[in-house]
């Protein structure tokens, strides 16, 4: 990427915009490059348009395709409901089911973004080789797609939530109610997005160097899900297990997401601290790693 941006003082040049680029082997290619961020901002529409075009191409431009964005989360939820509640045979009620929906959809956002993100650089072949642009736009576009696919799932979530909170009889197993604290789910979701963006950048980079990362990904993410408070509540965990969850990056994020959204409870302050640290820490690492390796990507494709 150019290191000395800005309009050159070209004496007697015509009125058109002149840009001067100097390409050198620089070692300082970390996040300080202002020109890079300017270009990224100027070309943000590319990321949006790419995400939109890809979503249209895969499913959303037919009536059924759009329906699928809603149907897919319903089916997923049904499978888990069948598995855990009916076959598992616990006395688990609406509280549990709604928690499961919220956590599952949040986790799928992460999973989907990581899977799609791993393909962005490797799959962007020709564009990466032939156009000079901030490659960060490619994983960001995958992020945007993942978030767009997540939003319809909230409709499903709130449909169930409203039914149980407003119409279903209250019991020990149904304590669901609307509350102002649920608004805290918005910052919790923000943390989830920041964390997911960091993971997406890491996967995009890793796939360039190890082309089988995307093969391992489904197994790794599934295992990760079982170790996280998705199929159970964070507060249900045994104390000794909770100690280890400090090292599970997604634990605190899912915990505050679930507590606020489902239970209308603020959750523990320490969870919020952990969630903020993991989200921004992961994002920072992802960004630094991606930017440090970005110039090498075209050489490695």
């Amino acid at each position: 990427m150019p290191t000395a941006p800005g309009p050159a003082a070209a004496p007697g040049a015509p009125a058109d915009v002149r840009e001067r680029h100097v390409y050198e082997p620089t070692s300082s290619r970390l996040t300080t490059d202002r020109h890079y961020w300017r270009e990224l901002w100027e070309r943000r529409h590319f990321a949006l348009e790419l995400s939109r075009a890809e979503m249209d191409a895969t499913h959303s431009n037919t009536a059924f395709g759009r329906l699928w964005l809603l149907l897919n989360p319903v089916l997923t939820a049904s499978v888990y409901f069948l598995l855990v509640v009916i076959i598992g045979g616990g006395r688990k009620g609406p509280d549990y089911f709604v928690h499961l929906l919220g956590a599952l959809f949040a986790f799928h956002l992460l999973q989907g973004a990581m899977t799609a993100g791993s393909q962005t650089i490797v799959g962007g072949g020709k564009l990466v080789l032939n156009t000079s642009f901030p490659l960060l736009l490619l994983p960001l576009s995958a992020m945007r797609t993942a978030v767009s696919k997540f939003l319809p799932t909230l409709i499903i979530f709130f449909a169930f939530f409203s039914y149980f909170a407003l119409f279903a009889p209250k019991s020990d197993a149904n304590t669901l109610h609307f509350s102002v604290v649920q608004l805290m789910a918005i910052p919790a979701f923000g943390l989830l997005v920041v964390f997911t963006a960091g993971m997406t950048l890491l996967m995009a980079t890793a796939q360039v160097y190890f082309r089988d990362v995307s093969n391992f990904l489904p197994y790794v993410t599934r295992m990760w899900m079982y170790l996280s408070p998705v199929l159970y509540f964070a507060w249900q965990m045994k104390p000794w297990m909770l100690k280890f969850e400090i090292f599970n990056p997604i634990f605190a994020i899912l915990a505050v997401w679930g507590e606020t959204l489902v239970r209308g409870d603020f959750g523990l302050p320490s969870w919020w601290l952990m969630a903020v640290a993991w989200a921004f820490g992961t994002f920072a690492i992802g960004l630094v790693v991606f930017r440090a390796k970005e110039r090498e990507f075209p050489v490695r494709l």
Partner: protein
Amino acid sequence: MTDATTPAAEPAIVVSDLHVSYRTTMERRPTLRKAIVRLGRHERTVRTVDALKGLSFEVPRGSVLGVIGRNGAGKSTLMRTMAGILPPTKGRVEVVGRTSTLLSLGVGFNKDLSGRENIVLGALAAGLTRAEIDERYDDIAAFADIGEFIDMPIRSYSAGMTSRLAFSVAVHQNPDILLIDEALSTGDAAFKERANAKMKEMVAQASTMVLISHALASVRTLCDECIWLDHGELVMHGPPDDVIRAYVHKLKVTESAVVMEDL
């Protein structure tokens, strides 16, 4: 150097002592599994390919530089470095102006998207605004002239149709500097003629151009200057006629070179 333009013209591209190396793995497909298996054995699997070894030259504003050389000489590598896609390993490249690249692979990076979407995405990635694209879209489509295929996935295009699209997108960005890498090799005669006319028109507007081609005749007619690369080194830099004559002469005397050219 020849005096292609006015002597006062500031060079549009200055390449000084440019080295570019690729770092490539010996493995056909680098995988995590292999990396883990290799851990215990301390094998080195990274190989360095020195594609460019100390090039220096300038391209004056408004002139057309031809680049010729055998397959693997480093022409595309040079182009990608001038476009800011590949980082130099050593040395530096200075470019004044907005560049537009047209490399042999062309647009059409996403085969599932239509020609229309690829035009818009390619142009957005290259830095055009939506307004600029809306304004130029019809011209781009008309110049490419591929009929209703514009709304079909790129997957269904012939090689020539893809390169028409790529060329059309590149020339309609109103670049100060246009980099073309063998883009016309697959176009048909009619399109080549139109493309040549368009390139002449752009040169007349004082656009700077670098043209890589194995079609020596078009290098001869379009270029003001020519460089000949071989194994990443600059063999000759001068008027196209002289450089092409020397290049052809070399091809004839070295039999292996002729064989290389056929590959």
